[in-house]
């Protein structure tokens, strides 16, 4: 199942817009208490224990990974246009998205306490 380019671009715009809101909330979380205090280990872990915040972080991960790596894909396919390069770029994009989402999700889950000692 291949996506048409117009569908990919719609995803790009929607993820960009949605990411704006969730990232704004993420930044505000650092400002509800003095900045340095908000970065203390205990406070950060407390944030992760909040399930809503964990969902927020997960959505940031997915939205930004989609938007950002699609952007990189666009830049790369504009640079060179042979079949090997384009296929390679597509594969790289998908792998990169999956990797970063997986890695970030691991952090969230572990910090949330489900796998954390």
């Amino acid at each position, binding site marked *: 199942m291949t996506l048409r380019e117009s569908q990919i671009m719609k995803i790009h715009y929607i993820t960009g817009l949605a990411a*704006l809101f969730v990232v704004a909330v993420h930044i505000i979380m650092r400002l509800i208490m*003095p900045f*340095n205090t908000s*970065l203390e280990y205990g406070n950060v872990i407390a944030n992760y224990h909040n399930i809503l915040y964990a969902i927020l972080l997960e959505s940031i991960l997915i939205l930004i990974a989609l938007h*950002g790596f699609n952007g990189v894909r666009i*830049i790369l396919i504009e640079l060179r246009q042979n079949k090997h390069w384009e296929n390679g770029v597509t594969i790289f994009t998908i792998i990169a998205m999956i990797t970063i989402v997986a*890695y970030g999700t691991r952090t969230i889950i572990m910090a949330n306490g489900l796998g954390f000692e």
Partner: protein
Amino acid sequence: MASRNFNTLCTSGEKILMEISKERNNNDRDNREGLKGWLNPSRYGWERLSYWLQRLTGVFLIVYFIGHVYETSSLTRGLDAWNAMLQLTQTPWGHLFLILVIGTSTFHSSNGIRLIFTHAGKGLGRPGRPDYPYDAISLNYRQRSGIWVALILAAVAMLYGTSVLFGGK
């Protein structure tokens, strides 16, 4: 008879040109400006500048994002790892870098919103009958002010970020 000869002349001319193109190993890359065309934003006005900045900030932000996801994963290695990470990043240089991130993300977002409207065909004007001096209607004051607003918002955000990070309690 005459028309047939004329036809042959035209198609022969085209053939000759195609052969010249093939001979020179013309893989369409000849004389393309290449990456240099992307990197110099100074010649074609505001929209070209916005294109350049949007790309630059986008690449910077994705690189930052990858680094950020990695740095926050130090949480899973316990208190010591987290504090070591903080030692590395909560420094004056680290703060400056973060301020840059704040500025670039604000610019990228506000300009991106403007671009979403533009790519949807809004705010560009209607086609009509161009007259001397044949200025393009899509490059209007609305778009220019949108770019300025994005730049100003980025500057304001950077100032606020500086006050939080460097003026902290």
